[in-house]
């Protein structure tokens, strides 16, 4: 647990919870990123404006944070492009088929005590833990 950062995790987590609560109180929408972003892509969806604004805020956050001296770390990504593309496809397709991702199911859904979301979160956490165990310990070991 050498890299455990409970204080920044708690502050950041509280902000994520605040964003989800505010979005529901103000606009009546669930702060699920895959749902919000997925709705930006679909044809015949007429509420693209608030969806695009939320995504814009998400992407602009590092810029505004840099004004107060908070630097965005450069992401550590796998070198293998096949893995990157495959993971992107799985995350995109899976989140739409499953009706949500880490934010929609993991935070908003659990906050609503939705059985669907608790099941979804358990399944994707379990699968991700298995994948990391296999790639880091079984294959690399």
């Amino acid at each position: 647990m050498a890299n455990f950062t409970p204080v920044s995790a708690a502050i950041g987590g509280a902000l994520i919870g605040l964003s989800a609560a505010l979005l529901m109180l103000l606009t009546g929408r669930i702060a699920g990123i895959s749902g919000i972003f997925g709705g930006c892509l679909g044809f015949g969806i007429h509420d693209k404006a608030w969806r695009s604004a939320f995504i814009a805020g998400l992407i602009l956050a590092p810029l505004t944070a840099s004004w107060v001296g908070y630097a965005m770390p450069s992401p550590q990504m796998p070198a293998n492009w096949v893995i990157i593309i495959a993971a992107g496809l799985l995350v995109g397709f899976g989140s739409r088929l499953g009706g949500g991702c880490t934010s929609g199911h993991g935070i908003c859904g659990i906050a609503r005590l939705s059985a669907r979301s608790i099941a979804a979160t358990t399944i994707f956490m379990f699968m991700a833990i298995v994948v990391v165990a296999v790639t880091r310990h079984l294959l690399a070991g």
Partner: protein
Amino acid sequence: MLVIAALICGLIFGWGLLISEMVQPAKVLAFLDIFGAWDPSLAVVMIAALVVSVPGFRLAKRRERPILATQSVWPAKMGIDRPLMIGSALFGIGWGLVGLCPGPALENLATLSPSVIAFVVAMTGGMTLHDFWPKRRPMIRQEETLVTAVDG
């Protein structure tokens, strides 16, 4: 007003991911790596988020309508069905491979990292593929989409 509220919520969400370091795939993978040097930070992020969102959602449920819109869109689907389980399993595999889920992936576009851009393009492709996937029961599906919203 709705657009400004959504923009501000997006900014707060992004700051949350940034401060908690959940934008860093390595930090997420360290949480998922329970057999390695386990970093429980992501669990603290989720708990802290719930501490704030649970009372917020309770408050929202009690109100007749949201402050800036005519009605709230609560997810209406009930029951744990096959698409939920298969979709979540596929999502989990992809998440475990790279350590990116949709929120951090989109926020990381700000770094202009080519591999993040490739991930987001593939993710968008995966979402589009799902939305255009031929449905076996088109009539029932159409009715379903009229009355229900996605979970998140």
